[in-house]
């Protein structure tokens, strides 16, 4: 009897420890790094994002080429041009910052005439 009574607190603490860490282990089993589906889900998500970026890049490249074709002075610019520091974003950046105020045209039709005599690109 005395021995049982002496053991009781130890048993109680052991049971508490078991319940506590058991609950924590159950939570850990549901953690993201334990989800075997996660790598495939991430791969799918990244593929969707990559395809969207490629679509946007292709559309941007077509419009940039049309703009440079229409305005050789911009195409030759060291910053906004075909070989400029901004790459394919240079054409649209030029239009945003300067071209639209100078009356230049941004669009897919390479044969569309400029609506006014453009100022020298900055």
């Amino acid at each position: 009897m005395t021995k049982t009574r002496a053991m009781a607190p130890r048993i109680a603490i052991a049971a508490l420890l078991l319940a506590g860490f058991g609950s924590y282990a159950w939570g850990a089993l549901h953690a993201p790094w334990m989800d075997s589906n996660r790598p495939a889900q991430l791969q799918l998500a990244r593929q969707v994002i990559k395809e969207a970026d490629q679509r946007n890049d292709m559309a941007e490249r077509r419009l940039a080429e049309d703009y440079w074709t229409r305005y050789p002075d911009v195409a030759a610019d060291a910053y906004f041009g075909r070989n400029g520091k901004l790459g394919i974003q240079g054409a649209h950046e030029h239009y945003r910052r300067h071209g639209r105020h100078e009356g230049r045209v941004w669009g897919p039709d390479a044969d569309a005439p400029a609506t006014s005599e453009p100022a020298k690109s900055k």
Partner: protein
Amino acid sequence: MYRRWFFASLLGLAAMAAAATAWWPGGDARRLNVILLTVESTRADMVRPDTAPNLLRAAESGLHFRNHRAVSAWTAPNAVSLLTGLDAFALGIHAAGDSLPRIALPPVDGKAAEDPPLRKLSERGWRVAGLQAFMLIDQFNNTGLTVESGGEFLPWLAGRVVDRKPFFLWHHYLETHLPYGPAPEFMPDWRALLPPGDTAARQRIETIMRQPAVPAGSVAFKPTDRDAVVAVHEATLRQFDAWFGRFWDFFQASGLRDTTILVVTADHGEEHLERGDVGHASTTHRGHLYEEIVRLPLFVWLPPDEKRLERGLRSIQAPTHHSDVMPSIMAWLEQRRSAPLTRLAEKPWQAITSLAGFAEPDPLHVREFVAARLEAGWKLHRRYRDEKPVENRLYHLATDPGETTDRAAERPDLVEKLAKPLDAAFANRRQVRREAEAAALSGNAAAPAWIFPAGNRAVRFADIRDGITLRWSGDPAARYVIEYQAGEGGALRLQGRLEAQGLEKAFGRIDATYWRDYVLPYGRLRMRVGLPGRDDAWSEWVEVRALP
């Protein structure tokens, strides 16, 4: 001995803390996402196995609400009701330019004003977003929505799969709106549904395939046109269903199915010549609340691990409406089973609409409304003009689902019974007092002048696809109003006002389909900017012509 007890106790406390973290219901372990997907102009009876097989197949694992209704007859009040949980009487959105108050939702039933639910979610860490430029218009102000204009639906969701941050996304599928222009692979042989050789009939159907609005009386439709009207409109739903199928595949494969509450419904329905018109309030300018406009599909999917929140339900016949949706979403996010949508309570339904919605000719002075109440199977339509009731129509839906036999004269007792709460709701409805408020604020400031556009100009889609920002001179701290007139006469005319704070108004990216279907048909847009409440402080009119 003492040390052993001390460290054993510490370990026990640590274990209990760990257990509490794992089991605490309000912990971060389970912050569900929400996708609210609304489908434009889609009535409940359009959703069938032959028109929406992907949607209905997916619905086998969700909740199907078979008796769901809108709260108004056009997009904005219904969408804002879905986003806030308020009904159309409380919202006060009846025309272009109407929006919720800046600080908090309007108080309802004597309760104190509350923050919009989406703002609460945002404060708790959800990314609350809409991706479409039209969500920047005034009607959606102050809902708590952040418009990330130009984002694409699936790539945006894919970004959330990667970063695993909780989100609320509202996406509105627009391609089921007039003009009905399904892609070639969905286009039906509508000509075969018309009387042979009837070129006038073909022209009438071509009108609904070309114009974003068909005002009542502008086209003399015949009853024999109906099959073709339904066929071309339902073809746009088939196209939606194909799109939904691709979304559903991604939704499951990406794991979002396990972590997201998905709600699919419509903003409102659409008339298919039941009353002589094709469209809804904003497009016919003869708005009403008959079942073809208000009876809508509603589907909800809860994550599989949250089955207990479904309460064992699958197909729900109890009446529900748009203002039940957001409170239900909030209940589910808080892991509560007491969602209004699943309470199965038989309750009355009420709705209100202006006649022309977004196209109201005088948005600041809407004089005519239609309200309706459905109770115990009887539906009263009550028209108000200059604040007074002027007409009643009463229908018994069980025996007259098409609402063709008006029984108001036969049952004045029921008219009186249903009119009483409707009159009370109408009298207490929120009424936006924009001009009075703004005039009190604007003082004696000088009239603004346009900076961009600096003068009349033509614009192509390529010029504005990345967004456009209107700019004017003036006081950066003042409020301004932009008055616009779209169209060149004829059936397609739109006018209204937009509010702006400061010296610019930005419009985000729009896609080519939106430009083609909703901007090009109007051809010309005239705008002027001024100070609210001041007729002597307008800029000059500037005209912008839309080119392909």
